[in-house]
């Protein structure tokens, strides 16, 4: 992990191609200017979080990088190449209900591999390993309805891992979970991501979560979302929840909260006056 951290710090133009590079990306929905312009670089193996008020365009940005929508302007490069469609090695983790209720845990995890035409035996074998990795051993043949929200999210995480990703895009993956489960899942995600060493773009409402997980936290202002601050998080890895009480971590949380608060207050008034 230390080498990755180092890589990130001297991400000069000469460094290896970043996994994500955005320049001047904007999105418009009809007359609504939803996002940008935004510049963003994510290094290989770097964990970047975006926090910001509701409706600021965080999810839009993630969907643009995931090729789920095309930007109105700007260039998007992933792994050094312009983005033309969904990439094989980009994995997206959605909210918990993205598990398929009619498939067992192991078949949910194997879903991405199945879509890519991997044979039944091979994909199930791989899926079983991943189920084990995310701590769901013994639940292979359960259906999502038989699992808790946190366990369902582990299933989604395992599915994301299944395609050997070099980039994971997570859109408030723990948003529907209770506070304790959230923290446990965050630690779990760190463990798994550190193990496969991929770049992560993580969108969250939780400032704590962003500080605990990230190498860098980007604060997005209200619509049209642009980045108003960038907060490096210099905590040693592997991190556990206790790291949040270190002075540098609390300082980072204060700094992020101060920015968000100002933005969110203005955004709240703005939404009230324009229904």
């Amino acid at each position: 992990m230390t080498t990755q951290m180092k890589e990130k710090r001297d991400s000069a133009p000469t460094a290896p191609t970043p996994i994500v590079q955005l320049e001047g990306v904007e999105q418009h929905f009809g007359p609504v200017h939803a996002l940008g312009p935004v510049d963003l670089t994510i290094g290989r193996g770097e964990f970047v979080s975006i926090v910001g008020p509701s409706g600021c365009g965080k999810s839009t940005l993630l969907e643009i990088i995931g090729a789920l929508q095309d930007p109105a302007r700007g260039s998007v490069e992933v792994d050094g190449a312009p983005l033309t469609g969904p990439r094989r090695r980009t994995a997206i983790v959605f909210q918990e209900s993205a598990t398929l209720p009619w498939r067992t845990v192991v078949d949910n995890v194997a879903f991405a591999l199945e879509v890519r035409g991997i044979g039944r035996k091979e994909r199930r074998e791989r899926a079983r390993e991943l189920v084990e990795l995310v701590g769901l051993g013994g639940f292979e043949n359960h259906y999502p309805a038989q699992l808790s929200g946190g366990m369902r999210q582990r299933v989604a995480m395992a599915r994301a891992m299944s395609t050997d990703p070099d980039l994971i895009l997570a859109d408030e993956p723990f948003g529907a979970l209770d506070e304790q489960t959230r923290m446990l899942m965050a630690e779990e995600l760190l463990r798994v991501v550190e193990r496969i060493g991929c770049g992560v773009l993580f969108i969250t409402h939780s400032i704590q979560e962003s500080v605990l997980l990230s190498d860098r936290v980007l604060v997005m202002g209200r619509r049209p979302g642009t980045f108003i601050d960038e907060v490096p998080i210099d905590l040693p890895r592997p991190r556990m929840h206790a790291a949040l009480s270190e002075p540098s971590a609390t300082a980072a949380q204060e700094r992020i909260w101060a920015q968000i608060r100002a933005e969110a207050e203005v955004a709240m008034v703005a939404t009230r006056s324009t229904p």
Partner: protein
Amino acid sequence: MSARRAGGPAWIPPLVLAAAIVAVWTVTAALADSAVYPGPGQALESLRADIGDTRFMGSVADTARVLLLSYAAAIGVGAITGMLLGLSAFWSRAALPVVYALNSVPKIVLYPIFLLFLGIGDLSRGSFAFVSGVLPMFLIMVEATAGVSRLHLKMSASLGMSRWSLLRRIVVPSVLPSLASGMRLCFGLTLIGLLLAEMFSGSSGLGYELLRNLSLARVENIIGQVILIGVLALVPTLALQQLELRIRNRYEVTA
């Protein structure tokens, strides 16, 4: 759920209620002692006589045959066209209001048109029954397909799934619970359509037998037939209910 099961097996309460209804019927019929209000004994007696009659059994077989064909066609056509239309946001928006309007017209006012074009016979009766069932089935499936979880669709898009793969792996499993409800609902509607058609233009069939007994003032036969139709409808309905329950348990999105 457990509280509801506390009284023993689930089939006991409805059976108790049914027995109570029969008891009330018996007592009131005996008290009324009227020619147009036969008791269960008389009704069953005349039903037994009817069942012994080959002409009557021919009618039952006719109804069953036409029902089966029109029901199967209504389910198949309604489900497949509904799903295909539901996949296209544009065509859903275009067609739904029209079909809803059409569906809200009492179907029986369309029946003369069926007679005019298809003549009196199994074809017009079966077609009318088919239309009675296919419209609701179609509407249910359009709505179900349009309502497939956006999150699941996004996930599929992120995996670059082909249209066929999406249909097979996401859309079909997602709409199965609605398909099962639709099958249960449309069975009743198709049966009503068929019985109505038989009443108006039958030379055979259970609807025809009902009206024939009316003109002959054989009330106990009518009641007997009502019982028969009830039983004939009940068995498939219960089976379809079971099917629906199973499918819902497995396929329904429980977020």
